[in-house]
């Protein structure tokens, strides 16, 4: 194309491009070019939003769930990738009446619920669940509930934060206190609690152990002992830990499942539970207030809690099932390599409400700011 003709077309082209962007409310107001309706008419399509690794990594659970659910219910399940802002994206959408076309959110954490209620209003964004409409809701272990006073969520799987260490370099730390000893100088990799779930979980674990008034002092001692707080889990684990930078990292207690799957060296992937504990991070699912096909969403919840689906989610998503042992049959690999702590530590909804942001902020200011 000749530059000259081209220059002339730029102006008119951009005007045309913008002209097509006026929409009437209610006519597919999402993700331009996505083809419009997101199943909000109760037309047998369920749109489920979830985080990337649930649908987009090697052996994700998503494709299996979609196929099995569609076979069983003669309905369509559409996965939607959780936008970059996570729960904030939906808080802002609700705040600005921009419309939400997903029906179900799969992968809620307790702090997400706290943020929803802080920003919008108590009990906002998701429907209160009618447990009578769910056949299998009682299978979920009571201690795995997120503790939402508005009953919006159901837990579908569970992860524990623990330490992963290299037994050739360090001995297993028996307690959190041990990590401040000279023996563990410059050995620990943690993550930024402002950004990473695992980092925030580890911080909350220390708050549980040392109290609101003692945790900053503990972190001061950790800092004096050379802890490194990196950005996210990937940077600290796939980057620093896997390249032998340090012999200990805050990670998940299912680490050895991957060690076995990908032929890593087990001596470099030992799981430690300081104080015999692990921080519990239950993941929940909830139905958006404006969901189209609510019946189908309830069917989906029951399906996710079925024995087969729980086993598949555990194996593929490498998290523990949410249901009691008698309702799920796990394969040997998982049983052998996924470790549970003797005692789980966690803050529920009430423990975090009104505290979380302040705790994280005080902690982050201790570290940053020269």
């Amino acid at each position, binding site marked *: 194309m000749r530059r000259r003709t081209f220059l002339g077309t730029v*102006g008119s082209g*951009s005007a045309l491009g913008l002209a097509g962007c006026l929409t009437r409310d209610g006519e597919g107001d*999402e993700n*331009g070019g996505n083809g419009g309706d997101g199943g909000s008419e109760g037309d047998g399509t369920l749109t489920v939003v979830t985080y990337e690794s649930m649908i987009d990594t090697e052996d994700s659970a998503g494709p299996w769930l979609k196929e099995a659910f569609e076979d069983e219910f003669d309905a369509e399940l559409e996965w939607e990738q959780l936008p970059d802002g996570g729960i904030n994206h939906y808080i802002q959408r609700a705040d600005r009446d921009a419309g939400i076309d997903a029906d179900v959110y799969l992968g809620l954490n307790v702090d997400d619920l706290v943020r929803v209620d802080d920003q919008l209003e108590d009990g906002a964004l998701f429907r209160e669940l009618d447990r009578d409409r769910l056949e299998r809701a009682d299978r979920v272990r009571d201690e795995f509930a997120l503790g939402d006073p508005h009953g919006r969520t159901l837990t579908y799987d569970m992860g524990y934060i623990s330490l992963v260490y290299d037994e050739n370099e360090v001995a297993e730390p028996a307690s959190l206190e041990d990590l401040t000893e000279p023996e563990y100088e410059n050995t620990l990799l943690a993550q930024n609690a402002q950004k990473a779930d695992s980092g925030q979980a580890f911080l909350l674990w220390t708050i549980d152990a040392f109290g609101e008034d003692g945790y900053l002092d503990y972190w001061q001692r950790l800092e004096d002992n050379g802890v490194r*707080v990196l950005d996210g889990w990937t940077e600290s684990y796939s*980057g620093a830990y896997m390249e*032998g*930078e340090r012999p200990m990292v805050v990670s998940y207690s299912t680490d050895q499942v991957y060690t076995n799957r990908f032929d890593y060296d087990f001596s470099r992937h030992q799981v430690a539970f300081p104080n015999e504990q692990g921080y519990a991070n239950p993941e929940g699912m909830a139905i958006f207030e404006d969901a189209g096909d609510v019946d189908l969403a309830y069917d989906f919840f029951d399906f996710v809690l079925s024995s087969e689906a729980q086993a598949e989610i555990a194996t593929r998503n490498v998290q523990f099932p949410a249901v009691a042992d008698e309702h799920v049959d796990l394969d040997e690999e998982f049983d052998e390599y996924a470790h549970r702590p003797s005692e789980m530590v966690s803050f529920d909804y009430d423990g975090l409400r009104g505290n979380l942001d302040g705790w994280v902020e005080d902690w982050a200011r201790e*570290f*940053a700011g020269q």
Partner: protein
Amino acid sequence: MSLADRPVVDRLSAGVVSAWLERHVLSLAAFGTAAVLVVMLYLPVGLVFVEALLEDGSPTLGHFVEVLTDPFYFGVLADVFADPLAIGDHLGALAGWLGGISIAVTLASPVPGLDLPVPWLAVELPPVQKGLFGFTAYQAALSTVASVALGLPAAYILANYEFYGRRTLRSLTILPFVLPGIMVAVGFYAMFGRTGTLNTLLGAVGLGPFAFIETSPLAIVILAHAFYNAPLVARLTVAAWESVDARTVETARSLGASPRRAFRDVVAPQLVPAVLTGALLTFIFTFMTFPIVLALGGLQLATVEVWIYDRVQRLAYGEAASLAILETILSLGLTYAYLRYESAQTGFSQAPSPPPKEALFPDARTALSPRRLAVLGYGCVALVLFVGPLASLVVGSVTDGSGFTLRNYAFLVERQLEGASFQTRPFPAIRNSLLFGLATLAVAVPMGVVISVLTVRAGRSGRLVDTLAMLPLAVSGIVFGIGLLQGLVFGIPLPGGWRFQVTGTVAIVAAHAVAAYPFVTRNVSPLLATLDPAMVESARALGASRTRALLDVELPLVANGIVAGAAFAFAISIGEFSSTVILASGSEHYTMPVAVERYLGRRSGPAIAMGTLLLLVTAASFVVVDRVGGRYEL
């Protein structure tokens, strides 16, 4: 700006419309540029910035005051901002600090890992609380020095020597620029980690292992910044060096100047603007650095951008916007200062005839000369710093816990063939990246050129517009992303139930173009400014329209700059992540960097394989872009 056009005497009557178009093409292009900027930049950014000035809907300066007087953000300056009139107290504090400086001669071991005592002059400065802004500026300044120091030798070699593969190497200098932050971090750990490539090599000759990253996180972060930005400095400088008129050097030499003198008085002044542009861009980029500091250094090295991200996450827009505005003011202030300097460098018309290139190693004797040895030494540094992380990444994509494996690429192939519609497939990512890149070129190059043409001779107001034209680089990427989300993706409600929304391909290309055009402007403006106005005037006197004069006289003379700017624009588009991921969320418009991010699971293998693919595709396109662009270089 009115362009008083004289009617063109068109004897061949080539159509009234085309004559009209030719006369008004500049105005039309300016209008188009303004439209894109208003919708894609000023609107989204303005939406967020306004939050800084509002508290529950009423105007306030409270957010600014809070930030400015918080020692966490501004260290010792916070006291000054809190009580600017207590000059006596501030001077007293300064005197106290000066009194605390002590100088002593000690023995130190400056080389890590070597017990070699060296007499060392220890200057003890009492600690100063820098605050978040202070530290951010400090690391940006160090990163800028490192990037210029590592970029200039590369520019010197590429501009003055001829060797096999020079042009390809020149094309490849763009690679660090397009690599997603997470890949840079993984590449650096793979290269400099305790069990990384470098330690493996050193171990082979009986040295080490050295804990490079552990010893000084700050140094590694600065090196990572140099990895990103030294190529930028090098590319800008090479473009300027190759625009030098060799005849001016010959004239100086024939008048008796030594080679060194000729370089100092004739060549250097023509390079300084390019080097300073590179330094300025590097400073702005590293001031806004985000993932790299925390991925390699740790939270102790947090920058302002880290806090903006956190405030946005916690939906505290007032504080986030205040921080972002302060960042922007600082960046634009620096830009304005630089542009004042640049416009003072009036040149004279020049027809570039690049200096002849010497063979790098013509014979064995020359190969041992000090200058050639220095080139070799720099080559080794470049191998370790630039090639090392990239090569380690490529190696990492074909190794696994148990050694060589093609598993990661098998994953990509399998995903391409069998991936479900909701999954990210490699081929569409590659296709989208290339299409968006080309479309960005088509929009950003005219935008950048138009802004250059309109500002270059407009004096003081032109400088102001030119400074504002740098806004895309000076705005926090996080804030820009949030603005795009709230303004364009969610849409702006209009009366009657309508919504104004901009999403999809148009939005992504426009966002890329907005991020890319400043590079075109910064490459073209300095060259355009040095042209002799008399040339355009003679063309106009002979009856050419302003547009005709621009296309036939000016642009060919600054083709070098346009090509260099276009290359950057393409690279910016390929590497852009933060606004793409927002505008492409949930749809099929994902690009290569977005795919890399989505493949990151509990194992980084597939993502690294995708990152390697990104490198290969970028390398191939740049060899092509530079070859095609090279035809236009005079």
